[in-house]
């Protein structure tokens, strides 16, 4: 009987862990839409949404009610099945990628020994959502947005993986918990500063955030790949985007800023605090920088970022070899 009981307890613990993480990720991503608007306001000498609830924290509730009660319109010229499927993919892949993020000791969904590869695979799958959404909408703007997304995300994917290989070399593992443990003495943001810079740029491009939001670019493509989307399908794209920002920030923290490591405060608080700082930096980037032209974006990726990543890889490899 005892073994059954303990097995039960383990199951309960795992499910509690899972549901809590899902709830917190969703809540944080939802709040992020409010946080982003407040921060953008702060940096643009205005207030941002501060009407609904104290300081406007209930803005997301109002937005959700509005989104859910909007007409869920599928254009008659759209490819129906793919059109419905596309927004689900981005939400599912980004949430799945969250499974491997080591939030704190004992908190996390799975402890994969190829956690980093799983994260890269899932974030690459996200591009299907954008491309399929753009294709299935069957309109010029969406198609152009989808095309840009495909080219942009493929070229930035190349050095996104390569930028992380330096971290893997130093830690000697693909397991994210091992990588965090390897930063006990020195965070990887110091020896891997080039890796951090390139991964951050690639991460922003992966999350389709300004200044790399060319698939969306409101002022030339209406809304890019989600021009034809409305109601909660549109909302799902946004959930995907905000979970994506949180994911990239959490990964930057895990890989370069020592994850949950930190003095005095409990590990969970350190992790959340660092993640929030990185998210705020992403939002500052959006507030400050204009969107580059499309050819500039491609040239930047292939001619600047990829060589920098390769140089970083060579140097790290040489150092690791000479130390061994």
């Amino acid at each position, binding site marked *: 009987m005892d073994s059954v009981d303990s097995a039960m307890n383990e199951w309960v613990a795992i499910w509690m862990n899972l549901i809590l993480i899902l709830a917190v990720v969703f809540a944080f991503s939802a709040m992020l839409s409010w946080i982003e608007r407040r921060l953008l306001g*702060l*940096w643009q*000498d*205005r207030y941002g949404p501060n009407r609904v609830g104290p300081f406007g924290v209930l803005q997301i509730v109002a937005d959700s009610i509005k989104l859910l009660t909007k007409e869920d319109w599928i254009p008659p010229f759209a490819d129906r099945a793919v059109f419905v499927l596309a927004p689900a993919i981005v939400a599912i892949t980004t949430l799945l990628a969250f499974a491997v993020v080591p939030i704190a000791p004992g908190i996390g969904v799975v402890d994969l020994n190829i956690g980093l590869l799983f994260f890269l695979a899932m974030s690459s799958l996200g591009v299907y959502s954008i491309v399929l959404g753009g294709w299935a909408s069957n309109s010029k703007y969406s198609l152009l947005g989808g095309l840009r997304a495909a080219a942009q995300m493929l070229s930035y994917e190349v050095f996104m993986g390569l930028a992380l290989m330096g971290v893997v070399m130093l830690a000697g593992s693909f397991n994210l918990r091992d990588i965090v443990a390897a930063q006990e003495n020195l965070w990887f943001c110091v020896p891997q500063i080039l890796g951090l810079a390139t991964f951050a740029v690639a991460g922003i491009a992966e999350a389709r955030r300004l200044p790399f939001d060319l698939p969306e670019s409101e002022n030339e493509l209406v809304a890019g790949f989600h021009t034809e989307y409305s109601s909660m399908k549109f909302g799902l794209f946004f959930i995907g985007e905000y979970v994506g920002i949180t994911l990239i920030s959490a990964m930057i923290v895990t890989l370069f800023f020592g994850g949950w490591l930190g003095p005095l405060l409990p590990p969970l608080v350190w992790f959340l605090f660092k993640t929030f700082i990185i998210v705020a930096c992403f939002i*500052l980037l959006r507030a*400050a920088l204009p969107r580059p032209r499309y050819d500039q974006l491609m040239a930047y990726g292939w001619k600047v970022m990829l060589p920098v990543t390769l140089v970083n890889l060579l140097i790290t490899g040489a150092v690791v070899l000479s130390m061994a």
Partner: protein
Amino acid sequence: MWNSLKTMWIVFLHMFRRRVTIQYPDEMPNIPPRWRGRIILSRDPDGEERCVACYLCAAACPVDCIALQATEDEHGRRYPEFFRINFSRCIFCGYCEEACPTDAIQLTPDFEMGEYNRKNLVYEKEDLLIDGTGKYPGYNFYRVAGVAIGGKNKGEAENEAPSVDPHSLLP
């Protein structure tokens, strides 16, 4: 790259600037006195209607939102029998105020005129008339104009010499 970082730093420093937003329903914006808002009809210092129903405002109005009918009282003083402004048409251009020869029609710094019912935007004379003189406190049209009106004959206006009888041969 350096430029981008500098831009980000400058934008970050804006966090400590004063907000430019005026949170309108909570705090009122500072509206200049010449703001072209809700239209009123003013009275002269004696408390009489300034409007002489000359139709110039209605003629000047580019959207034809002013309707009025002239009439006279027992002293021969002209005034509007009705005066109606349809504010759902009014574009607040201020041409009526410029056209008015007696400073009767004036635009005020009030803009909070929202209504749920479109009909309520049609203002009648009793809605338009105010008790004061508006922007021109001392001005009294009939006390400076040369016409004879109840209680005031020709030559009795302010700054006016007594009228001369051109048929009299006396010096």
